[in-house]
């Protein structure tokens, strides 16, 4: 019997309309756990680097995390993996909600989709019965409406539905996959779903998920819940409110937006408004939020309330979470009311809440600069808010200039030319970033921005405070009950980290310390993305209930595998290294690993080079960021080094790096 996982994947070929159930190798669970780890293994094995994201040969994998559906609180994530039309690298986006546990109860760990359907379809997974059904009547429908219509036509109100909106259908490079209160948004995976002609996947499951050591796991779950209660009653003093508690940032619960609105940039990641927040705005925004927020809501088996039902008068009810209430607001220099209004339409269309507002703000900057003209924007309203709605409507339909903007700022700038490239200034690896511009380089964040495989800071940071606490007393207080650290030395690093002076950014934390801190933070994300435990209870917040000391016991008692801290760290390293290898095979090199040019005012080229050198070494990679043969061997990934050698990506150290052309290569690069 398989524990925690089902041991069965669904293989769907949309070109041929073929459906198969494949038993999986439990040995792979021992090597990669599940979720992102086994997704990466499948993508490495089955999608050669030449395959364009919009090719029938690209795979789109929906995976339940290894622990999803077990009693483990917060284990509910679906990990969607494919290749991104925007970055041309591996894309993986993770969504909460209810889909993954339902899939497990239907009897499957993953749905692996290949091919392309000649006409729009949706997939209906009803326990043992799996059907590809016609979706032509759902074309053009919003994501929430699609889910509702499918539940009605199947007469199955409990079916969980993941669907794309118009943006995915029209292959917008930042299209999301929406699932009620949650979405998998980054990397344009909704566009890949649209390219495959797949409008939605509905799932309903009524089978058991088995636990290997029930009593032990039950005890661990109770400990986690107790800690959550204690932690919720004791928010961390001295940090901004949204980072003081657990969960993803509590944007739906809290009203104090001083930190975001005065520290993050407005417009196209341009303007900092240090004096923006005042009592009058706080009062107005609080009123707005209280008026539209019907209820705070959770994901499956999680006590946190990170989402909310939003009912703005006269527009359809939808669900929201986290920071998207402010991304549109701030990109348009508008207010919260506008944010809630446009987010409804954006959710319906199915677009990413980070990239989309930035693309629109970018377009308006180009218009102000005369690079885009009235000819490009026929009939555009005169007010910024009206213009945002106008642009959103055109982008998701790929109408006129929308067809160009739908490719994201990086590609759009190159298509537009006339100096537009200067305006696409906030990307890493062609992907739009948080609108943040700071003064002094932070070595820890430098490494995370450069090397994060997902090119998304919130998916690598966590655990270690973002900045030093002002006084030693505050730091001492913080480390007192900081038992989550993998090693006591991290407490010392934090104690000695000063806001100014010798022990401050950019030379402290030292290069070595920075490597260790980043490695720890990243490891926790890789574990979560394999188990399906939400980062909001684990890798993201300070002092989370899940950590390297209890996760091995949680995983062992659920699955029956014997895993200790060292073993779990090694699995996380294996998964992380494999994803690096997948991207390296598609062309990723050191030259691509840099933050947006203007992210920090004060830059230190020598230190930065040293940081990358040492971090690569720390990770067991060569100077180009390519895992060495030795590292791959130690992780049992000899098949990877053989492939990289055959492709002459891995060579002996002396000739390394001379012939390589940087950046992912496909036909689209020649369009420049």
């Amino acid at each position, binding site marked *: 019997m398989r524990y925690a996982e089902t041991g069965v994947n669904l293989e769907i070929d949309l070109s041929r309309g073929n459906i198969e159930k494949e038993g999986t190798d439990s040995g792979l669970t021992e090597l990669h756990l599940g979720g992102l780890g086994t997704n990466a293994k499948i993508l490495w094995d089955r999608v050669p680097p030449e395959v364009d994201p919009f090719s029938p040969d690209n795979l789109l994998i929906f995976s339940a995390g290894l622990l999803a559906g077990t009693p483990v609180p917060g284990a509910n994530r679906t990990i969607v993996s494919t290749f991104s039309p925007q970055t041309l690298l591996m894309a993986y986006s993770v969504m909460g909600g209810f889909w993954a546990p339902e899939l497990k109860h239907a009897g499957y760990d993953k749905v692996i989709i290949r091919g392309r359907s000649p006409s729009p379809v949706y997939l209906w997974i009803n326990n043992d019965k799996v059907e590809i059904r016609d979706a032509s009547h759902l074309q053009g429908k919003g994501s929430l409406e699609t889910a*509702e219509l499918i539940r009605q036509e199947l007469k199955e109100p409990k079916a969980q539905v993941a669907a794309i909106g118009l943006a995915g259908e029209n292959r917008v490079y930042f299209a999301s996959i929406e699932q009620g209160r949650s979405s998998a948004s980054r990397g344009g995976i909704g566009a890949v779903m649209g390219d495959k002609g797949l409008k939605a996947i509905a799932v309903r499951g009524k*089978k058991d998920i088995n636990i290997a050591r*029930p009593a032990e796991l039950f005890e661990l779950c109770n400990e986690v819940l107790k800690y*959550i209660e204690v932690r919720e009653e004791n928010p961390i003093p001295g940090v901004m409110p949204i980072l003081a508690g657990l969960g993803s940032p509590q944007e739906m619960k809290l009203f104090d937006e001083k930190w975001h609105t005065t520290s993050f940039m407005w417009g196209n990641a341009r303007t900092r408004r240090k004096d923006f927040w005042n009592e009058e705005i706080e009062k107005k925004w609080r009123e707005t939020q209280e008026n539209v927020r019907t209820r*705070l809501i959770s*994901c499956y088996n999680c006590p946190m309330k990170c989402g909310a039902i939003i009912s703005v008068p006269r527009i359809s009810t939808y669900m929201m979470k986290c920071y998207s209430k402010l991304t549109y607001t701030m990109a348009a220099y508008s207010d919260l009311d506008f944010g809630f209004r446009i987010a409804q339409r954006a959710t319906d269309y199915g677009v990413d809440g980070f990239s989309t507002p930035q693309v629109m703000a970018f377009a308006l900057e180009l218009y102000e600069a005369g690079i885009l003209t009235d000819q490009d924007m026929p009939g555009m309203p005169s007010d910024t808010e009206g213009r945002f709605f106008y642009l959103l409507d055109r982008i998701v339909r790929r109408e006129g200039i929308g067809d160009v903007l739908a490719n994201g700022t990086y590609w759009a700038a190159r298509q537009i030319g006339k100096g537009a490239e200067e305006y696409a200034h906030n990307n890493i690896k062609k992907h739009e970033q948080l609108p943040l511009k700071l003064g002094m380089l932070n070595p820890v964040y430098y490494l995370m921005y450069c090397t994060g495989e997902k090119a998304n800071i919130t998916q690598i940071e966590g655990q270690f405070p973002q900045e030093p606490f002002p006084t030693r007393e505050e730091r001492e207080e913080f480390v007192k009950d900081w038992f989550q650290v993998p090693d006591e030395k991290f407490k010392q690093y934090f104690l000695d980290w000063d806001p100014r002076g010798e022990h401050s950014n950019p030379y402290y934390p030292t290069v070595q310390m920075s490597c260790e801190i980043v490695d720890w933070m990243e490891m926790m994300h890789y574990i979560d993305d394999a188990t399906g435990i939400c980062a909001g209870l684990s890798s993201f917040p300070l002092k989370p209930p899940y950590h390297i000391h209890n996760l091995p016991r949680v995983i062992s008692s659920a699955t029956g595998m014997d895993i200790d801290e060292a073993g779990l760290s090694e699995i996380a390293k294996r998964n992380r290294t494999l994803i690096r290898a997948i991207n390296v095979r598609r062309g990723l090199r050191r030259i691509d690993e840099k933050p947006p040019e203007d992210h920090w005012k004060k830059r230190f080229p020598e230190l930065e080079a040293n940081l990358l050198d040492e971090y690569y070494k720390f990770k067991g990679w060569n100077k180009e960021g390519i895992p060495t043969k030795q590292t791959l061997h130690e992780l049992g990934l000899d098949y990877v080094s053989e492939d990289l050698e055959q492709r002459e990506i891995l060579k002996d150290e002396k000739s390394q790096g001379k012939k390589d052309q940087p950046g992912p290569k496909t036909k689209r690069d020649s369009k420049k």
Partner: protein
Amino acid sequence: MKKIKVIKVDVDKCNGCRACEVICSAFHAVPKYSSTNPEKSRIRLLFDPLKDIYVPVLAGEYTEAECNGRDIYTIDGKEYDECSFCRASCPSRELFKDPDSGLPLKCDMCEEEPPLSEPLCVQWCLSDALTYEEREEEGEEEEKRGEMEIGLESLVKKHGLKTVMDTVTRISKG
């Protein structure tokens, strides 16, 4: 005096996480906690987020007949579907039937020795949508009926005593 165990349900506090379903199904698994399956839970959350409807319902008595007609409640402008608040395991709906055997499920307030401080669904509801109370009432303690008895009784009602007896005899010979 008899002890009345009460689970108080505050629908306004429910956040729809369904932890109650998870832990209930785990508790009733054999061996205990060895599997999860909300379909086997004796508490189910009836919810429709876009209408802001969240109703945790505890499984009550099995009934062999549907109601004559249905009720629809409107509370605070929200229309609740027929049967929303009903606890019965009944022929008109799928709710509260074991998906494997079709036998009715009924909440037992987590009956076990030594007794739990509170039913597990209450313990796992950190939002306090579910809270627990005990009170004393005049009257005799009813004799508790085991799951087997409730299940068998429903089979007898459905198929007749003779068929059930014959089947049991046949199984025992096999």
